[in-house]
């Protein structure tokens, strides 16, 4: 270890006023509001960041967060304070909303034989697009009246390969009921379950990079896009560009779901908002 490196335990926790300043900054930038119950968590992450940056204290570190060209430390802070893990039926309330409110509306304006297109982006190792498929098969009474295309896309080709394989551990399946696991998975080895072939073969996985506007090269063809817990990690300019790309890839009246701690209010006002029973969802103008 370099002599000048500071260890987290040597960094004083932020004062109450410093924490308030940081909480206001995070709220302004991301829309995430860190209530008092989460302050110990936030303090610890701040100490980690101060130590990692070898800063003299909060003031120097916050100066970097605020003014560094490119906003690297700001992004590192956001990464450090957002918790992300992927599993099946994550943020299930949005799948409920999909089935109870979104799909019925989409279906109502479909011509006979016209496909419904749903996009999961980023899809990582596939939990999200497969969850969409499983959930709507189990809960949408009209699923058999329409052709539904589900596409999962990511920039990480290794993740896509694992997604196509469809093998998962117990942690990924922990929020699924035993009945759902039995219906869609087969245990292939101790600790590993594989998604059934029928579902694996009905999701298309492609490489895509939302930061490069080519995601809309096919035109406005998607009815529903899930873009959850990605934009929060982008800087301001990239988030705007991503929002425009998402807008352009949606059909008029198409819907967009972000992650539960994300809001378009910090990204773009081009989407209308729909307040449904289960969730607030964004919508491209019809």
């Amino acid at each position, binding site marked *: 270890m370099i002599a000048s490196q500071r260890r987290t335990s040597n960094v004083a926790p932020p004062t109450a006023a410093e924490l308030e300043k940081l909480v*206001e900054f995070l*709220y*302004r930038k991301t*829309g995430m509001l860190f209530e008092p119950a989460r302050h110990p968590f936030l303090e610890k992450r701040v100490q980690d960041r101060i130590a990692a940056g070898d800063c003299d204290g909060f003031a120097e570190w916050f100066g970097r967060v605020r003014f560094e060209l490119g906003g690297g430390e700001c992004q590192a802070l956001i990464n450090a304070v957002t918790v992300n893990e992927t599993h099946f039926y994550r943020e299930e309330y949005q799948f409920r909303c999909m089935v109870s409110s979104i799909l019925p509306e989409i279906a109502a304006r479909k011509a006979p034989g016209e496909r419904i297109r749903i996009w999961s982006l980023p899809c990582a190792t596939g939990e999200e697009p497969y969850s969409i498929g499983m959930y709507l098969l189990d809960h949408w009474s009209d699923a058999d009246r329409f052709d539904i295309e589900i596409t999962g896309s990511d920039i990480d080709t290794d993740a896509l390969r694992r997604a196509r394989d469809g093998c998962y551990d117990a942690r990924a399946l922990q929020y699924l009921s035993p009945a759902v696991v039995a219906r869609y998975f087969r245990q292939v080895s101790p600790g590993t379950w594989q998604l059934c072939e029928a579902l694996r073969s009905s999701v298309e996985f492609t490489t895509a990079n939302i930061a490069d506007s080519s995601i809309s090269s096919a035109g406005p063809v998607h009815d529903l896009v899930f873009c959850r817990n990605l934009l929060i990690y982008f800087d301001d300019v990239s988030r705007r560009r991503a929002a425009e790309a998402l807008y352009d890839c949606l059909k008029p009246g198409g819907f967009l779901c972000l992650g539960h701690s994300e*809001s*378009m*209010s*910090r990204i*773009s*006002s081009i989407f209308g*908002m729909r*307040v449904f029973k289960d969730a*607030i969802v964004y919508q491209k103008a019809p």
Partner: protein
Amino acid sequence: MSAAIPKVLVVDDAATVRMYHRAILETGGFAVEEAANGYEGLEKALSTTFDLVLVDVNMPKMDGYSLVRALRGQPATASLPAILISTEAEASDARQGYAAGANLYLVKPVRPDDLTLNARMLTARLAR
């Protein structure tokens, strides 16, 4: 019927202004929630029942006039009392505010008594 404590949504991009309005309103017996721009204000106003909304005119993402118009366009918030607060003191700006559907147009910086009295007046019919 409204709850015993009237709830106010304070929408302003300046944190200090939100704190100031919160302090005045809480002293005046109101419960307060905040939003930092017009778009977030719309999300909150459509998700929660408020008795009054305070709306700054100059905000990113969705300005105050647009927010008030959007509220008036939704059944749930069509009659939500709205006070527009602006740094602009021209009569034409007030006219624009009323045309958007605001109940009242105040000029910043707001004095505590003015805010409290007007907030009470606009929420009075809800109190029982």
